[in-house]
């Protein structure tokens, strides 16, 4: 389109005629995302107090190697090099982390809040070369669908964690007994919110039916597309609620494990 050049006035960084508090939203996004990343990194590096009885922190699930009863393959082998990380969270947290990092919604938000690209609509941005998502590393954002597949698998594991969180050790008989604690509800809400976020994923919407120009005569596919589209309309809400609740769930389990909080049993 070489013959389509249009000259126009470029705004300086932050220059705008907008009168509203346009900077509030990117500031809130910057604060909440930074707080989450700092907390999740701190929690992941701890390697302790991530489980309490039948509860397992979602930041550590699935626990592949670890000392708790939740570990799939038991403790780390003794031959594990000492300089490598040992916290179970570090083996798995990359997957949900990359799912959110490559999420279409979050991309738009962190480009604004962290890169000021643009800081807000109709607000001038720093002068620099721009290639969008066409070059490395941002071209890798196109792999989002692969992290979606992993996220769907993780969702099943977290659902199983909720089931396990419904079984408590009976001190009198020594057997497991069905019950519901506050922690069970916290972990269940976590799965619901993560489910709402994952099932509204734009890539899932595409795979469910967006890929097709015609959905008539494909009732199941059409139903799936409608269902994902329904979640997708509130993708932003699900994204933020699920993010905050994951951190809260970890904090709840952590506080119970350290004895700073008592887990009330609602049904036992």
């Amino acid at each position, binding site marked *: 389109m070489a*013959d389509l050049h249009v000259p126009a006035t470029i705004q300086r960084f932050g220059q705008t005629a907008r009168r*509203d508090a346009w900077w509030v939203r990117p500031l809130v996004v910057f604060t909440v995302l930074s707080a989450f990343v700092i907390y999740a990194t701190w929690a992941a590096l701890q390697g302790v107090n991530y489980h309490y009885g039948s509860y397992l922190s979602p930041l550590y699930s699935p626990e592949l190697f670890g000392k708790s009863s939740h570990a799939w393959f038991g403790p780390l082998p003794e031959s594990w090099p000492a300089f490598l990380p040992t916290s179970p969270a570090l083996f798995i947290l990359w997957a949900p982390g990359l799912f959110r990092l490559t999420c279409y919604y979050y*991309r738009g938000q962190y480009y604004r809040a962290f890169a000021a690209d643009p800081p807000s*609509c109709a607000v001038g941005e720093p002068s620099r070369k*721009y290639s*969008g998502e066409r070059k490395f590393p*941002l071209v890798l954002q196109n792999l989002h*669908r692969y992290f979606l597949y992993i996220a769907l698998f993780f969702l099943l594991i977290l659902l199983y964690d909720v089931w396990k969180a419904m079984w408590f050790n009976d001190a009198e008989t020594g057997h497991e007994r069905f019950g519901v604690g506050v922690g069970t509800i916290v972990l269940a809400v976590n799965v619901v919110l993560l489910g709402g976020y994952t099932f509204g994923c734009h*890539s899932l919407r595409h795979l469910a039916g967006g890929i097709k120009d015609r*959905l008539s005569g494909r009732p199941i596919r059409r139903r799936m597309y409608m269902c994902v589209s329904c979640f997708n309309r509130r993708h932003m809400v699900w994204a933020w609620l699920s993010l905050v609740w994951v951190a809260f769930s970890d904090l709840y389990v952590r506080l119970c494990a350290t004895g700073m909080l008592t887990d009330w049993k609602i049904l036992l």
Partner: protein
Amino acid sequence: MIMNAEFQIWRGGKDSAGRFESYSIETTEGMVVLDAVHHIQSNQAPDLAVRWNCKAGKCGSCSAEINGTPKLMCMTRLSELPVGQPVTIAPLKAFPLIRDLVTDVSWNFRVKKKIPPFRPRKPDAPDGTWRIAQEDIDRVQEFRKCIECFLCQDVCHVLRDHQQFESFSGPRYMVYLAALEMHPLDVEDRIPLIKKENGIGLCNITKCCTAVCPEEIRITDNAIIPLKERVVDRFYDPIRKLFNLFK
């Protein structure tokens, strides 16, 4: 209720240094910004250039930047704007100024000409025409609401700030391309074009286009991202590529 209000309107042509000029008028309940501009044009500045047509938010002519935000002048009520402060009205920033509030948006029409038009499949109904199920056309009908006001083009930072007019077609034409690509009768393949010439990879989905659309088309969610996903299918999904080899 009659109130006095101040308007600062951009005055100037492409060859002269422009500036905001102040006008005070008495406003009445229910007035929109375009009413105020017409009042100023009739009584104080008869040479004020402004493009308008329907006054009903359907022709897309009266696009401007009101208090710094791209909006249709005919659909912006004065009661929505902060009271007691002058209302600034400026031309669209992304396009070359002709005079006052009028910009040259002809670049958009030149982009449109370069997009391969609708090409239907062979008629498959006994009467030599086609049948389309409503559920197949629902998605596309949202895109048909576009009034070509070019507010989305104006606010898009790829055009507005990065000036990538040569490599990016802008949100308006992503909507147009989505309407063609998702049409159940269309058989033209525009995916390589969408990736290269239309430059969909330049969009970083900050949703400003969606925010300013007066027709409330979910441009990013329903047009741009689905097109991005189709481009991923073709160019960035190694497993799909492998699968297609054995098809």
